[in-house]
């Protein structure tokens, strides 16, 4: 029993240990310099990434409350990697921050929450994981303590997440009332699709939609993304979204399998709305953080197409896309984060003629934007391609052609606004360009990892094949 516990919950335990190391560092008598503390933390996070990829086993613990398998371990590994990249690229911001240890404690406890949420086999575990992954995040959204925007963003985040968990919980309570169980494995057998169960499912879906900012529930996204510190914004847009999407896929394919027709139709309507609204708003933005917020809304719309595939390809394409999305979005955010921390400039106009002064940063952000847009040699192209393929039903699932056509048209619109930024960087003239900046080692490392990730995940097909071999449809 104890051995099982240590092996199966290894990933969670490592994070908990890091959290407690930080706690003891903070309450200990020795005063740490920010630089050395950051170096120590990054080494610990690197160890965490290494540990989460080796020696994973399958198993179930605590009466099915906790379960893990190769796919879940892989998802956790992807999230750990993303956290490491964010930590590296927010070095410049944290260097001068007063509360580094607390920042990482909160950040890692959200990561722990996501792990438990992904592994949870019981709705209580799922709910606790979800809350553990949002409440501390709201606290760190306020970590630019003297900026008003940051506090506002934090408040909006916590209120909208509380409201969405209210919806989610009401749905869960009705599910509990009609089935009498909270275990995912039993729900799949007891749900029958009565009207009240469908209503409960809609509420539950709305709760999920809030967390991944699908369109009628996206109103908090742009404000929060703009106001929060860039490190938190990138974490919100990539890691927490990714974690909720992982759970979303496994919940839809597992527990709510009996309601497949309902959620297929809902996914159709919501994803079309999401893609269109995300694109239309992204075109109008001038602040790069808001721009990335709306473009990430549009990306979620594409992911929902993949989710609708409900086959092995569906799961695999979603996980693969999130991996690619982590690299591409974090590369873009890494550059924005660095420039914003050093110069405070965040608008597209400020980035005009960036290439003249900072060719390295320009290339990184260009490759990232190409990948986000889905330009062929990059991994983003393959990610989108697999998502649409899962949606069309080539791999044996059902598909709506009109859906794919709308998505493809919107893909073209998204080219326009991503390339607008690239054009500003390379072609536009600017009298006061951003001065020449020297990038410190750690952020540079993060950018290089991201670019390498974008290129390599696109080039090597065994990554997708490996994910595909682990995934399961229904």
């Amino acid at each position, binding site marked *: 029993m104890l051995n099982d516990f240590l092996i199966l919950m290894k990933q969670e335990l490592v994070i*908990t240990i890091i*959290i407690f190391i930080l*706690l003891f560092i903070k309450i200990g008598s020795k005063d740490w310099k920010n630089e050395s503390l950051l170096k120590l933390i990054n080494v610990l996070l690197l160890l965490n990434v290494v540990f989460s990829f080796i020696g994973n086993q399958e198993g179930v*613990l*605590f*009466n099915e*409350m*906790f379960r893990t398998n190769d796919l879940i371990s892989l998802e956790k590994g992807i999230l750990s990697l993303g956290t490491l990249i964010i930590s590296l690229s927010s070095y410049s911001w944290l260097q001068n921050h*007063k*509360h580094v240890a*607390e920042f990482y*404690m*909160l950040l890692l*406890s*959200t990561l*722990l*929450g996501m792990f*438990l949420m992904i592994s949870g086999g019981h709705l*209580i*575990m799922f709910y*606790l*994981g979800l*809350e*553990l992954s949002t*409440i*501390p995040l*709201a*606290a*760190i959204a*306020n*970590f630019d*303590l*003297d900026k008003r925007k940051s506090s506002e963003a*934090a408040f909006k985040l916590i209120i909208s997440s509380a409201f969405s968990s209210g919806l989610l919980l009401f749905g869960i309570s009705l599910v509990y009332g*009609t089935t009498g169980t909270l275990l995912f494995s039993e729900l799949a057998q007891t749900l029958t699709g*009565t*009207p*009240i169960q469908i*209503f409960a499912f809609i509420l539950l879906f709305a709760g999920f939609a809030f967390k991944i900012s699908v369109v009628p529930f996206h109103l908090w996204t742009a404000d929060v993304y703009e106001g929060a510190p860039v490190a938190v914004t990138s974490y919100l847009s990539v890691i927490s979204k990714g974690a909720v999407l992982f759970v979303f896929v496994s919940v839809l394919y597992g527990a709510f399998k009996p309601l497949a027709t309902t959620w297929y139709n809902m996914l159709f309507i919501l994803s079309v709305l999401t893609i269109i609204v995300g694109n239309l708003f992204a075109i109008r933005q001038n602040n790069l953080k808001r721009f990335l917020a709306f473009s990430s809304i549009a990306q979620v719309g594409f992911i929902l197409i993949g989710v609708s595939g409900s086959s092995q390809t569906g799961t695999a394409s979603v996980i693969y896309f999130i991996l690619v999305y982590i690299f591409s979005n974090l590369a873009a955010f890494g550059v924005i984060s660095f420039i914003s921390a050093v110069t405070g400039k965040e608008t597209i106009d400020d980035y005009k003629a960036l290439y003249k002064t900072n060719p390295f940063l320009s290339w990184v952000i260009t490759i990232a934007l190409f990948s986000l847009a889905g330009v062929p040699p990059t991994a983003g192209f393959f990610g989108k391609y697999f998502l649409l393929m899962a949606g069309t039903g080539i791999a044996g699932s059902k598909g709506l052609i009109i859906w794919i056509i709308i998505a493809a048209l919107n893909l073209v619109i998204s080219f326009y606004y991503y390339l607008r930024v690239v054009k500003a960087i390379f072609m536009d003239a600017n009298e006061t360009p951003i001065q020449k900046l020297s990038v410190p080692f750690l952020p540079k490392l993060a950018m290089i990892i991201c670019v390498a990730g974008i290129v390599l995940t696109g080039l090597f097909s065994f990554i997708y094949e490996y994910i595909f071999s682990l995934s399961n449809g229904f």
Partner: protein
Amino acid sequence: MSAIQIIFWFLSALAIVSALMVLISKNPVHSVLWLIMVFFAISGHYILLNAQFLAIVNLIVYAGAIMVLFLFVIMLMNLNNESEPQKNVWMRLAGAVSGGCLLMILVSLVRQAIEINNKVAEMKVGDIGLIGNLGKALFKDYLVPFEISSVLFLSAMVGAIVIGKKN
């Protein structure tokens, strides 16, 4: 109508009226006091539903801790004389109408589903919600969620202290 039913109706009416008053009253202090009334009514329901421990927890945690925190903050900010701006009438009307529609849908669905399910409640198991039973289950079946909530509290505490303390 038996005594239990009378108590039930009284508590329900009290809960709904107080909940409405939370929203209607302009003064935040009054809102908080009405909200405490809601919690008392709900605790009464818990006792009727044989969840005695929960009733006490609800009072201690909500009425005793959270609401005192709210009151404390309101006093600290000296908000009690301020009347806040309201959103415009159409917005509120739209909210009320759509909320009402959803409410009707849900109520009709519930009635329909109960007819379908026709399950009958077990009677006279009055001690399931007592602290002894809950404690045994908490440290056996619900051990992991319990530990997770401790981590959650640690991080919430750290976050609240960092944000709330003066620089």
